[in-house]
């Protein structure tokens, strides 16, 4: 299924629930509000997307938001196995809380724990929300946000980084 066909299918199925459905350079992204994440996820599961490949978050300190993205795809339906869909939610940076999608897709359980410890995003309704990879002392410091700076010896030493 080509990205354009997938775009049409999604626009038809999701209707007004999604804020924005875009295709750019072959990457299909569905942007939703934090309240309508679970209905959209259920709709996608009915369409045939049955597992989550990756749960990730990106920190935009200049716009003061954190964008959590679920990359979903399908195993059991052959025509939907090829595209990967990105389901994104924008959360405010000071208090990022959203509903967990483990009720819809069980495969997102361990990766939501990762996003919790690296970015500080709380997932309501997660069965077992605790740090997965880091020791508790580091998990409090929210290491993957942009304000946690790791110094690197490079040719740009002394030049302030573009997001500082």
């Amino acid at each position, binding site marked *: 299924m080509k990205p354009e066909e997938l775009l049409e299918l999604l626009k038809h199925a999701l209707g007004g629930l999604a804020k924005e459905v875009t295709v750019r350079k072959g990457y299909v992204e569905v942007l939703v509000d934090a309240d309508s994440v679970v209905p959209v996820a259920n709709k996608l599961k009915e369409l045939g997307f049955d597992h989550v490949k990756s749960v990730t978050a990106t920190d935009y300190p200049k716009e003061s938001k954190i964008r959590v993205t679920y990359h979903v795809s399908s195993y059991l339906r052959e025509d939907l196995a090829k595209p990967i869909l990105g389901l994104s939610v924008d959360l405010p940076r000071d208090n990022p809380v959203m509903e967990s999608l483990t009720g819809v897709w069980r495969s997102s359980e361990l990766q939501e724990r990762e996003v919790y410890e690296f970015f500080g995003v709380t997932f309501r309704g997660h069965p077992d929300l605790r740090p997965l990879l*880091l*020791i*508790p*002392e*580091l998990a409090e410091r929210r*290491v993957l946000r942009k304000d*946690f700076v*790791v*110094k*690197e*010896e490079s040719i740009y030493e002394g030049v302030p980084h573009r997001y500082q």
Partner: protein
Amino acid sequence: MDVKAVDKVYVGNINVAARRARELLLGKLKLGDVIDWATTFSLWPVHLMTSCCGAEFAATWSPRFDAEQYGALPWVAPRQTNFIIIEGTVTRKMACALRITYEQMPHPKFVIAMGACALDGGLFYNSYNIVRPWEVVPVDVYIPGCPPPPEAVARAIIDLRRKIREKKLASRWLIEGWRHDRDPVKPADDVCKWWRP
């Protein structure tokens, strides 16, 4: 040694006797050399894989390079082994496991630090999650490389053997008792603060 005869029984001081026997056997009769020799030819490492250099550790004991010909057999239980090879990067979580395993081994014990990450961080030198292994356990031999080829690991075992025999590391434990120069740099509570017992 003052031995007195008390009613046809000879009585002496056992501690004094033991000390003089030890000085005689290890100092004058050179039993210490035999102990060092025996230790070098049966150095058994613990089976603790720390990081990605573990692939070359496994390859060193494979049929092509065969480190068992040096008498080194990777053994599972730390209580029956001589030395520990730190392969690769030591993260904060793994430092606790490494320290606990090191303390479970009986003396005399030795440490080989393998790979660039064990020298001074290697490729991950500025990562927030790693520690330098010489702060956690006292290291004897370092092997540079990323990853060091199995020939280098075998060479390090031979260097360790030379060091034990020249500096008499194994027999000094018997003669001198506890050796404070072999104490680790950081106390155990610092390394294992995060772990609930």
